[in-house]
């Protein structure tokens, strides 16, 4: 039971717990908080995988900006307790276990299949060193320059769209 394995299981259990809480919670604000818990535990897993810059970006952008936006909208709209669905109870009692077994089966076949074996036998556990930010930024600004510029235009369009939608509400 080495330390990376313990940390992986702790963060993995926390992430799955957060996802289950997101489904089970009755108020949207509790769902938002459990999603933040998932994101922070995923950031720790990224650190374990050596991607330290991505872990920091995950917390700064995802947990610290996108989820703040979600929390603001929940507070502004005063979203209260969720109503009961009008659909049949069969959907809940049969659907959730079936969905769960589906994903367990996908995970099982992922584990057993050729892809999993090749990865596990190949270079699965080598390279404990972290990826330096300098290498990542070299890739980003040299090989992926066009997607980078296109994404910045995408963000500009998103800002314009959000401003137009907000103004029309008045």
């Amino acid at each position: 039971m080495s330390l990376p394995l313990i940390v992986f299981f702790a963060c993995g259990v926390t992430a799955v717990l957060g996802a289950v809480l997101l489904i089970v919670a009755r108020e949207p604000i509790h769902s938002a908080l459990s999603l933040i818990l998932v994101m922070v535990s995923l950031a720790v897993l990224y650190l374990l995988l050596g991607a330290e810059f991505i872990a920091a970006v995950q917390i700064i952008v995802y947990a610290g900006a996108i989820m703040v936006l979600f929390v603001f909208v929940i507070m502004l709209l005063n979203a209260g307790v969720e109503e009961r669905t009008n659909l049949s109870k069969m959907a809940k009692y049969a659907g959730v276990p079936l969905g769960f077994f589906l994903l367990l089966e996908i995970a099982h076949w992922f584990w057993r299949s050729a892809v999993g074996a090749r990865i596990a036998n190949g270079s699965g556990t080598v390279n404990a060193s972290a990826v330096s930010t300098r290498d990542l930024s070299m890739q980003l600004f040299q090989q992926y320059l066009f997607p980078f510029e296109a994404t910045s235009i995408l963000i500009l369009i998103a800002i314009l769209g959000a401003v137009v939608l907000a103004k029309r509400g008045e």
Partner: protein
Amino acid sequence: MDFIAQHAVLVVSLVKIVILLLVVMTALAYLTWFERKVVAHIQSRWGPYYVGAHGLLQPLADGMKFLFKEDVTPPASDRLLYVLAPFLAFSLALTTLALIPFGPPTIQILGQPVFVIANSNIGLLFLFAITSIGVYGVALAGWSSNSKYPLLGGLRSSAQMVSYEVSLTLSVVGVLLLANSFSFNGIIESQSPNIGHWHVWKQIVGFLCYITAAIAETNRVPFDLPEAETELVAGFHTEYSSFKFAMFFMAEYANMITVSCLATILFFGGWLSPFPESWTWQLYLPGVGLLLIALYCAYDTIAHMRGIARIQLAVVALLALIAGASCLIPAVMPVIQGPFWFITKVGLFLFLYVWIRGTLPRFRYDQLMSFGWKLLLPVSLVNLLVTALLIVVVKR
């Protein structure tokens, strides 16, 4: 002893954490005393004077008051979030202090650096990550109190924090370009050997943007409209009392300390001394400074104080004397240099914070937001562009 040698990282880290917690809690308490004294003197009055000599026991009295006050919880509040918010704010404010180096990493015990708890090579990025989660403490406090003023104050305060966070991180990128590293030690190393190489001279615009954004980020005057008494009762911590309110209070001061530490590391050379290494008389400065404080306290004891205040001040003078004498021991002298300069610079920044609080009036909320987005953000961006261009041109 064998256990300690095998698990040196764990044991040394635990000891460092305990010491840092004790020092930071004391510093927080006496920062409130310092602020009240300085603001009082700016306003031509004395400040705390009666509780202990020169009001030095005032933080103790305040702490006991907070502990013994009645804890009132609003009835319709969301219990989990109501209790979570102050704990979140306070623990995040203290976590950032684990990343900050108080002295050079070459001074080690059992192979572990003494003056920094978490020596990470993307320390700066992690510090910003932790600060960006601090927004939730404020927002959840406002929401969970289930009342008008806290909700408005919480929303305004968190919107302000999110807006100024962008300018804060952008104003720092110029320093990163100059230092070529994300780690605090790398940034400090690029500012050696003396005052001429500090980043503040090359990045003066960045420094001013950083200070403005930092004051807004920590919700201090002149950007503290969401929690000002004359505006929204008390903003997001209206419905909090006793210990939970004390936690918000301490979280705000801890954020102030973190931001000041960051300013010294990024722009003023961190634990480096401003004088060149060859001036060996600077090794005596910590001891001499403490002995001067001891002398002043002793003079005050004899000349002005009466009764129990006399005994208290005599104790303070004695402690300063012991500290000053121990700083003059030859084995301790080179070790204490780093922390001494760091603490001096952080103290000067905290004095700047309190000075600004005592002198400037408040911004209105819409003025605050338009200042952040329409003035500070473009200035930070232009600073970044100009810095990058100059670096490319100079390197050719």
